[in-house]
């Protein structure tokens, strides 16, 4: 009996609504964030992650309002990411009711933001999101960190970057394989394992989940502490309770 592995549904939010994309093309409305959050909570989600995918800065304030409303009705940890740039952004999200804030691109532009925010608010609320893609360089390959949703290469080695982020105060890492994201072929287990073996903080595996076995593999083979998925839950293929039952039948500790 021990700490449960976590299942975290990810909700993409823009213009005040949850949206879901099909192969990143058209975005379809998937409902009111509070209602979707409540539904996942009732199904047994261990945490919720909200990703603000609003492109323009005009509607950025909306996510604060959404988090405020979700936090009044859903009593599990809430993580918010997307466009977090400053210490002030982190403060505003925490004050709105987020328990953790996920930082990606701005950590690459200014790594010190991880130190500043974790020393101000505590490591427990600073998640660093790393998007990585296997990159060939001569005869060697490495996992390269990408920003802006996978569009911009950084030259950074994802494993070294993960270690650096933890040393600056990240309390958790969210690792997304750009090679796998949207493919439904499962997590990049080698990537997850390579990072999980190197750092002390919990790892959330993301990118590529297509069926329930993938969740099990992320934990058992990848060594992840939590698994994040969007489409298998949004499209109703699986309920979180089904995912948990399957994990349990594979001898993974879960919260029922």
């Amino acid at each position: 009996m021990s700490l449960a592995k976590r299942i975290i549904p990810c909700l993409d939010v823009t213009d005040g609504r949850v949206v879901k994309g099909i192969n990143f093309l058209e975005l379809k409305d998937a409902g009111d964030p509070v209602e979707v959050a409540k539904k996942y909570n009732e199904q047994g989600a261990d945490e919720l992650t909200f990703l603000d995918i609003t492109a323009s800065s005009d509607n950025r304030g909306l996510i604060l309002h959404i988090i405020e409303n979700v936090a009044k009705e859903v009593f599990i940890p809430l993580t918010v990411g997307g466009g977090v740039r400053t210490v002030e952004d982190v403060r505003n999200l925490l004050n709105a009711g987020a328990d953790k804030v996920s930082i990606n691109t701005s950590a690459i532009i200014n790594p010190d933001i991880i130190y500043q925010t974790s020393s101000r608010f505590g490591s427990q609320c600073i998640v660093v999101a790393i998007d990585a893609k296997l990159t060939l360089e001569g005869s060697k390959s490495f996992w390269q960190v990408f920003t802006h949703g996978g569009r911009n290469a950084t030259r950074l080695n994802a494993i070294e970057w993960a270690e650096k982020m933890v040393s600056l105060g990240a309390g958790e890492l969210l690792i997304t394989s750009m090679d796998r994201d949207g493919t439904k072929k499962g997590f990049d287990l080698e990537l997850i394992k390579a990072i999980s073996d190197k750092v002390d903080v919990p790892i959330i595996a993301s990118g590529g989940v297509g069926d329930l076995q993938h969740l099990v593999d992320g934990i058992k083979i990848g060594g992840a502490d939590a698994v994040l998925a969007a489409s298998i839950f949004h499209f109703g293929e699986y309920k979180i309770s089904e995912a948990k039952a399957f994990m349990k039948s594979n001898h993974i500790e879960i919260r029922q």
Partner: protein
Amino acid sequence: MIAIIDYGMGNLKSVFNAFKQVSPEADIKVTSNPADIKKAHRVVFPGQGAMPDCIRELDERNLRSSVIDAAKTKPFLGICIGLQMLFDKSEEGNVDGLGLLSGTIKRFNNQNSLDESGHKLKIPHMGWNEVSQTNKHPLWQNISDNDRFYFVHSYYLESQDKSIVSAETSYAQKFCCAIAKDNIFAVQFHPEKSSLAGLELIKNFIQWSI
């Protein structure tokens, strides 16, 4: 009135929201005013971040004596660092706590520890773990033994005084995750983020008569 003590360390809205959810009619105040704490019928002492910062911020707001008074006189609920600060001292920054209870706050050691699936033990201890109740207490009413609560911490309580232990959790080792003494109840986990079990504990606290 229920006072949730605010000493500038992080967001207390989750705690406020959870109390409001359980008891919409209750007068609940997030406050850093000693007069409120004195007047309150129940006091909640939360905390997040690093304990040295928490102690410093508490003192900068001159709240130390209010907290100690409340902890000696009325139903008092410590949460997370709010539990840790009640004790003698912490390894985190080698700082002294409020010394209301005897015990030391220590850091999890993962040098030679593996979790139960053979992976390296992660720090912080983050997520839902089982809380095994070791004594009967009004705050455990209607909460099943070994129900899971949400934890996020890197330090834990080690106390020689076994009489105050009210629940234990395992994370590579067994540690005390809830203490009870007279009017004090304090938990290492976050009831405000622990869904139904957490709300139940908060409800029990609101109804607790000592």
